[in-house]
């Protein structure tokens, strides 16, 4: 604990000077169990030069899902490179309780982190509680805007996933030759149902008679559906064999299996959260028609940019189509100009409010 105390003491001292100009910091990125470590000596001898220290608390999975969590990490890493802030991240273990989530946030507070970002709705109650107990620390939570996490020092960053999903649903219907497409959800929770609802609406806006297969890999409280490529592969294989030629996944790390299945079936797949034609395994990138972008990286980066400037970012920020918080990718040029023109048309209609995209089934 001496380290943490020393670090927070030096941070406080610097905060008093109002430092914001830093080039080099002693930082740590704790990946998935690999070698990096916060060494005691470096933190104490050469003090960090920015007063913002960012702790990112992941839900189960953490870095390496090529999707949601990686997007959050990318936003933080970008901010780190640009503003020279100190960062760390911590990942949840499977089957932990509410107290463990609170404990993780408290550990970050103890270690002197000034801005703590909780990735995922599971943190709602714990962010609300720990934020109240530590009014001087700033918090952000992704995917939750409920009263449970509300507070004067809490930024709630949420997304209009249904709007982005509408566009890729339309893209699927416009591209499909069989008139039969699929959806693979990671875990059957309301958040993922938002993706499915938007996708269905988009596909049906193009072709009201389209056939849509839909499945969820696991049911809560089993959250392994967000990190099990084998399950994703089995589910997608079934859809391709049944006649679907395009499958959209909202299944985090399980999506890798959907891509493998698409490759084997010579079908298309649609990625999620990140631009997966850039982040997926190289061998399967060419089957990715487009990706529904949920710009968690932008949200995290924006939040940190505000934090560095000392602005108060508390409150709910909704990232929707209008502010380009969600969207679709065109990496690899797999969609024709004609399709893209139609998607832009739908996009304009959603932004103007002409089309209202449902967020539940």
């Amino acid at each position: 604990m001496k380290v943490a105390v020393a670090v927070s003491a030096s941070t406080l001292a610097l905060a008093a000077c109002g430092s914001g100009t830093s080039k080099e910091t002693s930082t740590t990125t704790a990946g998935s169990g690999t070698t990096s470590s916060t060494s005691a000596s470096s933190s104490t001898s050469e003090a960090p030069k920015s007063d913002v220290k960012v702790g990112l608390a992941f839900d189960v999975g953490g870095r390496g899902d090529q999707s949601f969590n990686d997007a959050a990490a990318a936003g933080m890493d970008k901010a780190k490179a640009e503003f020279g802030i100190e960062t760390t991240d911590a990942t949840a273990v499977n089957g932990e309780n509410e107290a463990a989530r609170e404990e993780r946030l408290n550990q970050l507070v103890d270690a002197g982190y000034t801005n703590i970002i909780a990735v995922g709705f599971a943190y709602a109650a714990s962010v609300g509680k720990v934020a109240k107990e530590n009014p001087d620390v700033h918090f952000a939570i992704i995917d939750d805007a409920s009263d449970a996490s509300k507070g004067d020092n809490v930024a709630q960053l949420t997304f209009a996933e249904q709007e982005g999903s509408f566009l890729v649903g339309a893209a699927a219907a416009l591209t499909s030759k069989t008139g039969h497409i699929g959806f693979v959800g990671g875990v059957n929770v309301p958040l993922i149902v938002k993706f499915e609802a938007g996708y269905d609406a988009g596909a049906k806006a193009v072709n009201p008679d389209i056939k849509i297969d839909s499945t969820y890999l696991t049911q809560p409280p089993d959250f392994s559906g967000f990190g099990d490529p084998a399950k994703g592969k089995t589910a997608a294989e079934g859809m391709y064999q049944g006649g679907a030629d395009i499958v959209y996944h909202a299944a985090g790390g399980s999506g890798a299996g959907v891509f493998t299945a698409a490759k084997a079936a010579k079908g298309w797949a649609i990625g999620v959260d990140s631009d997966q034609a850039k982040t997926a395994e190289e061998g399967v990138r060419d089957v990715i028609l487009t990706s529904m972008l949920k710009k968690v990286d932008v949200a995290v980066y924006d939040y940190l940019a505000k934090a560095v400037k000392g602005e108060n970012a508390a409150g709910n920020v909704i990232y929707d189509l209008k502010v380009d918080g969600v969207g679709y990718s065109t990496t690899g040029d797999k969609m024709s100009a004609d399709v893209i023109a139609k998607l832009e048309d739908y996009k304009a209609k959603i932004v103007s409010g002409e089309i209202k995209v449902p967020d539940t089934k």
Partner: protein
Amino acid sequence: MSNPLVRKLMLSLGAPILALFVAFALTSLVLMALGDPVRDVWITMLSTPKPRMITNVVNGAIVLYLSAIAVAVGFKMNLFNIGVDGQYRVGSFAAAVFAGQAWLPGILNILVAIIVAMVAGGLWASIAAYLKVQRGVSEVISTIMLNAIATGLVSWLLLKVAVRTAGSNAIGTKVIPESSQLEGWKLIPGASNRVYSLLILAVIVGFLYWFVLSKTRFGFDLRATGSSETAAVASGVKVKRMVMTSMILSGALAGLVGMPLLFGQDHSYGTTFQAGLGFAGIGIALLGRNHPVGIAFAALLWSYLDTQANGLQIRAGVAPELVYIIQGIILFAVVIAYEGTRRLDIRLEQQRVARELAAQRTARQTEGAVA
């Protein structure tokens, strides 16, 4: 070593301590092989927990203790109830739905909800018990399958009854009324959080477990059936009925596992309710040798490791999953050590008996010589 009681105590304490050392050594080797900072890891794991964390250790242990006792009841009968995991989720869900309706006031609501949880857990376990008794299906297989079915059933039902608060992406049952939420006790000085009020439930269950097993006819029959089924049949124990009762009892106790969480922390059953407690219970029952006090220590150790591991990534840069390696090695080592000490115990006992017999013989011989 001559006093059998002292010997037994030394052997039964020696095994887990030995296992801890083995786990310490092997985990260090794993860390070294991966190039992880061994020193930082142990500094984090062995640092004095803050009062807040001590509360978390105790709270975690309460839940794990209930789970391990539920498993231990089966173990005593040679029944491997792998199904505690499903049984506690079914029980917790049923109790959460019932308590959320607020049909009864305050404490009464809690008490009846606890009974609901026990009935639900027991009923779920009775399926496996029935299959075992009537169809000879191994309870290991049936309970594992029932776990999977419980997951599907509970989430399906959850979607039916779920209430969603605005802006939230989590779903859960209706929150239980405030009069039925237990605030907890300030047992740990200086801690901002409180120990679950239902610590008392764990104490009662622990006491009853000890009392019923060692002081009643039923407990004797149960242990007898566990030790030797044929001998039990010969002495008039109805084995089928014992299987049925103990399996249902195990399931009813499993129903209690989620109660401290439900009334002391989450106040509803939802997507963020703690999962996997049943499996942890199996390990803890093994570690605690099915003994009510042993299990308490094992649960505290387990919870201590879980809690301390939380800071691993932040303070040592190592993934918290490391704790699974530590816990796994402890279990392995302890099972081997228990078997080793059991054999040693038998050998020492034989030696003692042989010595006493020899002493008697020489005494008789000298008596004869004198006469």
